């Protein structure tokens, strides 16, 4: 279980303060598939970063009682100047997993071949997403935080990720920020709509999608 308790987040730039999140409360249970909906700038990525522990909330707290991936998104998590293999080795080490296994899984899942010997900074966003997904799947978390990124992949990658997340790993929790309503509709059992810094949790995904469309 992961619990968000009264999360507030302000970003300050000089004298201007932006209250991005104004008190978020919800719980991610094991096996939950939660779609996170909201317009651009509503705070989806911010919320995911707070849950992942990348940034700290201005007030409130995140209680993690299951293991949780780092936010899988367009940026972050990799050292650009290092190769795909070196990044994989680094991540295997800090998550205390045997590198040989991780490496094998990464080779097979990403299908990046010799690109893995190139520095990550020259990767396209799709290639990065492949690497991030492969690593987080190889490490095996209880909860995966996915920030948009499935959509950047090609068809082959989307099918692969869907198979891994929605068919093989049905016992894991997932928080999925996405603008793809069909995906949320198809795979999520709950949905959260973020608007004006507040979150509304819907047990009925179709209802959440309607609310989102009306925003």
């Amino acid at each position: 279980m992961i619990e968000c308790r009264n999360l507030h987040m302000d970003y300050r730039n000089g004298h201007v303060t932006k209250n991005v999140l104004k008190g978020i409360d919800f719980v991610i249970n094991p096996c939950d598939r939660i779609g996170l909906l909201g317009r651009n700038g509503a705070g989806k990525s911010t919320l995911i970063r707070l849950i992942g522990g990348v940034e700290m909330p201005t007030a409130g707290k995140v209680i993690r009682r299951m293991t949780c991936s780092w936010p899988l998104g367009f940026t972050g998590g990799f050292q650009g100047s290092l190769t795909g293999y070196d990044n994989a080795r680094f991540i295997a080490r800090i998550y205390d997993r045997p590198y040989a296994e991780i490496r094998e899984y990464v080779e097979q899942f990403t299908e990046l071949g010799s690109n893995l010997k190139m520095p990550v900074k020259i990767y396209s966003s799709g290639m990065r997403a492949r690497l991030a997904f492969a690593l987080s799947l190889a490490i095996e978390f209880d909860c995966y935080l996915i920030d948009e990124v499935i959509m950047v992949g090609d068809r082959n990658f989307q099918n692969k990720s869907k198979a891994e997340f929605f068919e093989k790993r049905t016992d894991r929790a997932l928080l999925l920020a996405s603008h793809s309503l069909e995906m949320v509709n198809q795979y999520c059992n709950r949905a959260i709509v973020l608007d004006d810094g507040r979150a509304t949790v819907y047990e009925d995904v179709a209802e959440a999608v309607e609310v989102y469309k009306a925003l």
Partner: protein
Amino acid sequence: MARFNEGWRIQIKVIRALTSRELMTRFGRQNIGFLWIMVEPLMFASLVGLVWSFLKAPTNHGMSVFAFVATGYIPLTFLRHSFGQSAKIFVANSSLLYHRQVKVFDFIIVRVLIESVGAMMAYIFAGIVLAFFGLFPFPADIGVLVLGWAIYVFFIFSLCTILAPISEMSEVVEKLVPVSVYIALPFSGVFNMAAWLPPNVRDALMWSPLVSGMELMRFGAFGTVVTPYYDIPKALGVSLVCLLIGLILSRRVRRTMTIT
């Protein structure tokens, strides 16, 4: 307690992973790799030694000028590099903070660790080469030499924990970091022994752990040729106070950091 031990275990893994990553990004896999870290302090020390040996007599206060310069400049290069590396260190590594177990403090530990190991290797290397020409004695007391290094490294580490967060807080401070190296020079004991100074100046310098560390290192290397002045409790006290301030500042900066 079990959680505490587990936390330690993870931090050690993180530090090891960060160290090998740092070595790879900085020195690459080609040519002499990690040995590069020794080159700069050695070139610096040998050129300054050469200049000094023309300006002054080849031996001074019973020590070879070359040996004196090497024992001073190599730790100084370590200081300079550590300060320079600490500026903006959190932002420079921020993509790794995506992984919750990586702490900003680990970045400072790793940088100072690498710099200190490099400087010590350079020190040993310079000592061996100079000893070959009869310019460097066999260390009189290796234990004292190591103690001096330890005090020096610990103090620089605690200063870096302050410099790193304040360099993120303001641009002005970031620009002041290189200046702080020059401010540190007179208090670093690089150019002279405390014994050569008037007693009131010497007493004031005892507040600088750099001086205590340097005096101990030189005493350990040259033995009774030099008269060392040091104050170990004061050195440790000052370092611990700096470390405490640094921990508080680092925590505060980390809490408000925006990570892209």
